[in-house]
């Protein structure tokens, strides 16, 4: 029996392996992953399996699903192929979701990090601004932004990001406030590391896990917000987005319910998958000390 402490324990398996193990323990999260992968495949193969322009007239308007194999899921009011739109819609929805999330998290991280790290009047100014943004009902702000910028998909994405950054900013700020007092930050300062490097190289990587988890929430919200805009007729009609499909399918909801129900289900499943993924990521990245 030895008391010497210099011997190293067995090396641990790779971080990714550990993360995967913790993630996979959550069965619901696995389901979320499966749905997510399916959506991903749909987005990636849009145009391969369904080589047509989704906005093109592909058949007799309002063909029911499973009637004509040229348009397996039927057509909408303008004779557009619902299957093709569904695939292209996956691409648009993911694009909106991912870009809006990256953008809002980006803004949130910079503001939250600066605010939380420096504190004082900088924090005051930034947090008052954040509060101002939070006080305006986000959907109303979104409508105003879309009214200003117009309804192109790029602007919708930017607008969604602009109304979504406050929560991550507060979150990052809280993380930074708690992390900036940690000894490893003092250690870095003591080594003469600059503030910028401390913020981005030392603290940020440690503040990321909850943000990554929250990113799934923003992804989900982005898709819901886009669809709500489309519902109010403010979607981008140049692209087949699920929101647009529901927005237009709603007019024929009672007679041709599938026009809205198919993209509706797609949205529900996708948003659900993001939420489930988020829970799984939470388990993987922020393991609770359960014995």
């Amino acid at each position: 029996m030895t008391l010497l402490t210099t011997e190293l324990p067995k090396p641990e398996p790779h971080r990714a392996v550990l993360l995967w193990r913790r993630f996979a323990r959550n069965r619901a999260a696995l389901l979320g992953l499966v749905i997510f992968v399916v959506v991903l495949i749909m987005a990636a193969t849009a145009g391969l399996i369904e080589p047509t322009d989704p906005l093109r007239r592909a058949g007799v308007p309002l063909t029911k699903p499973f009637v004509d194999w040229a348009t397996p899921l039927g057509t909408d009011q303008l004779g557009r192929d619902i299957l093709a739109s569904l695939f292209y819609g996956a691409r648009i929805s993911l694009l909106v979701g991912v870009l809006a999330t990256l953008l809002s998290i980006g803004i949130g991280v910079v503001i939250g990090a600066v605010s939380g790290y420096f504190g004082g009047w900088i924090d005051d100014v930034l947090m008052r601004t954040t509060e101002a943004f939070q006080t305006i009902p986000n959907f109303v702000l979104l409508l105003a932004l879309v009214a200003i910028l117009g309804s192109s998909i790029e602007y919708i994405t930017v607008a969604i990001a602009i109304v979504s950054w406050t929560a991550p900013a507060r979150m990052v700020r809280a993380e930074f406030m708690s992390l900036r007092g940690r000894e490893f930050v003092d250690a870095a300062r003591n080594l003469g590391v600059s503030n910028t490097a401390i913020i981005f190289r030392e603290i940020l990587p440690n503040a990321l896990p909850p943000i990554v988890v929250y990113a799934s929430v923003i992804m989900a919200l982005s898709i819901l917000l886009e669809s709500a805009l489309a519902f109010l007729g403010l979607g981008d009609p140049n692209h087949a987005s699920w929101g647009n499909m529901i927005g237009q399918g709603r007019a024929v909801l009672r007679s041709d319910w599938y026009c809205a129900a198919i993209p509706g289900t797609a949205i529900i499943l996708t948003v659900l998958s993001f939420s489930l993924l988020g829970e799984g990521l939470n388990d993987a990245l922020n393991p609770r000390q359960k014995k």
Partner: protein
Amino acid sequence: MIQKKVALRASLGSAALCALSVMTTGAASAEDAPKHGGTAIIHMASEQRALNPALRASTGVYNITGKIMEPLIDKSYDGYEPVLATEWSTSDDGKHITVKLREGVKWHDGEPFTCADVSFSAMELWKKLLNYSSTLQQNLDSVDCTDDFTAVFNYSKPMPLSLFVAAMPDLGHPVAKHLYEGTDILKNPYNTAPVGTGPFKFVEYERGQYVMAERNPDYWRGEEFPYLDRIVWRFIRDKSAAAAALESGEVHESGFNGVSMSDIERLSKDERFEVGTMGYENNVAHSTVEFNHRNPIMADLKVRQAMYHGLDIDYAIKTIMRGFAKPGRGPVPSAGGANYTDQVTTYDYDPELAMKMLDEAGYPVKDDGFRFHLRHRPAPWGEYTQLWGEYYAQAMREIGIDVEILTNDAPGFLNGVYRDYDFDTANGWHQFRSDPAVSTMVWLRSGAPAGTPWSNQFGWQSDEMDTMIDEAQAELDPEKRAADYHAIQAKSMDEIPVIFAIEHPFISVTSTKLKNHHNTPRWNSSSWYDLWLDE
């Protein structure tokens, strides 16, 4: 069943000088004796805030205030019908129009209705504040009251009587002088709580919810009228919810395409409802495609013709309007009566021809698969304007023209098209208001102040057209006037400054419990004194 006969029995063009019998047509059969009582609940898709037709000329406003405030003259299927006016005539030079007023009419507050009210309304509201009317009445110098019930309209330039009469149902609502004189007219409280002479008295306006009016016991047509105790206009913005409200019996009528086309089609097969376009003959609109002629490609007539050939109008009518429409034949709709003609150039759907014409015009398909790219602004006027815009884009792509759609809300659209000219093509609608002179010719005539919506802001200018329009407007002889308008129509179909692609009346869904409905060409705007409820 789907498409009810579009009744067009109005004898337009000549002024009816005598009162016509109060005969009604419509769905009610003769043997049903009208019942008194009941509350009719009417769906409104958008909320009307200002309830003064002498301040805001819009069908939405008439829809409610038509029951409370009456115009001097209304329109029936048999022609123009006296309401608050009983007779009208013009001087030989066309500069003085004499209107005899109905005696014994009282405002809802008990004050008598006299010429003073008409004179005040005409000078202070119709001429100064009311949209379209202020242009129409710009040459009105004064209104003289020779006695309490005779008003003489004095114009500095000749005013065709037929134009005057045709405008009156919409632009001829007097307000009570004693309630408006000496006040800030725009902020007068009676603008949202109207006082009129009509069969129903205003009760309350619950903003965001409904407007309610109740029976006027002192109505001038006699104790018999009106039949209903009450009318409520309910604001339901969402079309699906409105359809549900009709089906659950919470609403009796939805007009102006208040429910979606698919629901209209569905409910037309439902025994509980009558669906049709009757009663809108005076409220026809065109779905348009507007070009920005500042773009050299759009300025090329051959391109515009090719694009017209690329539009499958019949398909659009079938899929988007579900058959409740017909192809447009220029700026005047078939509901325009004598002023309408179908002897014009037409452009059949022929994509092959369209592509050939585009090739010839010097726009071959390029490497990216398109001939050229257009930025298109669709008007946000609801379901089928939007679909029409998307169909247009779809159709243009088929003939090799790439169309990028820029969606905006209403102010954004109006600004983008009519003020900033930031568009290549746009689609919206043109509303026909009884006479081409009221709001149609501004689509073709040059010289409208920049930024005026629904006017020629398209950069298209033709001196010949301008002259033709001015002459038609000043022409006093109805027949010559009609011929002038036929010529304008033909020219506009040749040169296509704007495509008046589809003419569609509005469609209403009415519960069979309502009787005597849709019995005038502007029924939703009329007074409903004879409407009754069979419950």
